């Protein structure tokens, strides 16, 4: 059987959902029989590859880089799974929206900086006006909420996608779980 080409990416989130992924523990071995991880913080791959079957996205979109990469992911992936509340609602990442990116930069790079007070202009990407969930930028195929999404829910979701069965997501997880 051909293995599923799986990508995972960590955008504006805390990596808790990726930790939860690892919390599948010995079940990872079972999953590994069916999937090939082609892009992820877990593997060393610089560029997002072509023809990925499923990409699991953790985190919201908060920078111009996030927007570019999510569009590339959409082009190169058959399916996108939004993992966790940040990817689905913005969650903690989006809390700064109430004040705006300008206020956050002002606080971080001027008020709290003792030396070299200026906005970052190199290396770090530019912040968007506001943090948005994935589905406000691209089409998302599956939503798996949770903060972080419990390992059991990730396992059941992957199993159902591998086996082609249906699951009741809301029996496994919810916003804020």
């Amino acid at each position: 059987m051909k293995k599923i080409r799986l990508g995972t990416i960590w955008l504006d989130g805390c990596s808790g959902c990726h930790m939860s992924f690892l919390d599948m523990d010995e079940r990872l071995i079972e999953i590994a029989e069916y999937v090939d991880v082609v892009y992820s913080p877990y593997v060393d791959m610089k560029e997002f590859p072509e023809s990925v079957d499923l990409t699991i996205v953790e985190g919201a979109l908060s920078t111009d880089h996030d927007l570019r990469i999510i569009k590339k992911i959409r082009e190169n992936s058959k399916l996108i799974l939004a993992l966790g509340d940040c990817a689905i609602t913005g969650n903690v990442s989006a809390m700064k929206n109430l004040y705006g990116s300008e206020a956050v930069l002002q606080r971080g790079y001027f008020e709290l900086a003792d030396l070299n007070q200026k906005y970052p202009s190199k290396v770090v990407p530019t912040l968007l006006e506001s943090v948005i969930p994935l589905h406000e930028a691209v089409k998302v195929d599956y939503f798996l909420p949770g903060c972080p999404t419990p390992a059991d829910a990730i396992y059941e979701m992957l199993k159902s996608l591998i086996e082609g069965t249906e699951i009741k997501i809301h029996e496994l997880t919810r916003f804020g779980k």
Partner: protein
Amino acid sequence: MIKEKVRVKNFKIDGVCVTGQSNQTILEVAHDNDIEIPTMCHLRGLSNVGSCRMCIVEIEGRHEPIPSCTAKIKEGMEVTTSSPRIKAAREMILSMMFSERSHTCSTCVVNGDCQLQSKSVELELGHSFTPYLNQRFEVDASHKNFVNDPNRCILCTRCIRVCDEIEGAHALDLFGRGLNTRIIHDMDEPWADSTSCTSCGKCVYVCPTGALYEKDISEEEVVKKREIITELVKNRGQR
């Protein structure tokens, strides 16, 4: 006051023949017959205002759905409590509630005991269908025991109704219009300065979300005694 004669009415809910009194609402009769209709602003024991629209139902011959908590029953009417159209409308209503204010479940003190959150499970809402508005309101933490956080308010007005109808103080009210509407105390004074608030805490207990909550307690310790009001009204009636 001229009392309207109460008559018995026969009608159908989801094809089931039911009977109610003419002063009853569709929701009440559905409840008496163990027919589930999702609700949000409704709380047994309080008056109904139909502000959230979660309990909308379709009536044969009517174009728009109507809230079943305020609609009186009529002889021979045929009510449908769930259809693809109603389901889509309820999802949209819930989406709008989530996107209007900042309901960040993971940082909320009532996470796990919130009726907005549990409604997303009940209606199987995967994500919001409307973009987030990112509105910010000032939090009123002046009261010694309670906090009013309009950022988590869905404007169900349960707090206003319980304060007026059960406690008899009417310390709370709505202020502003549309998206900027919020719950205020007296004439928009800080909660601590409210002369009519008795600090009974009923508003906090009936709040479906984390908009009104008790100070200095953790997520694990939160107890929302929502059914206490229903009990209270029942007991008063027996006296």
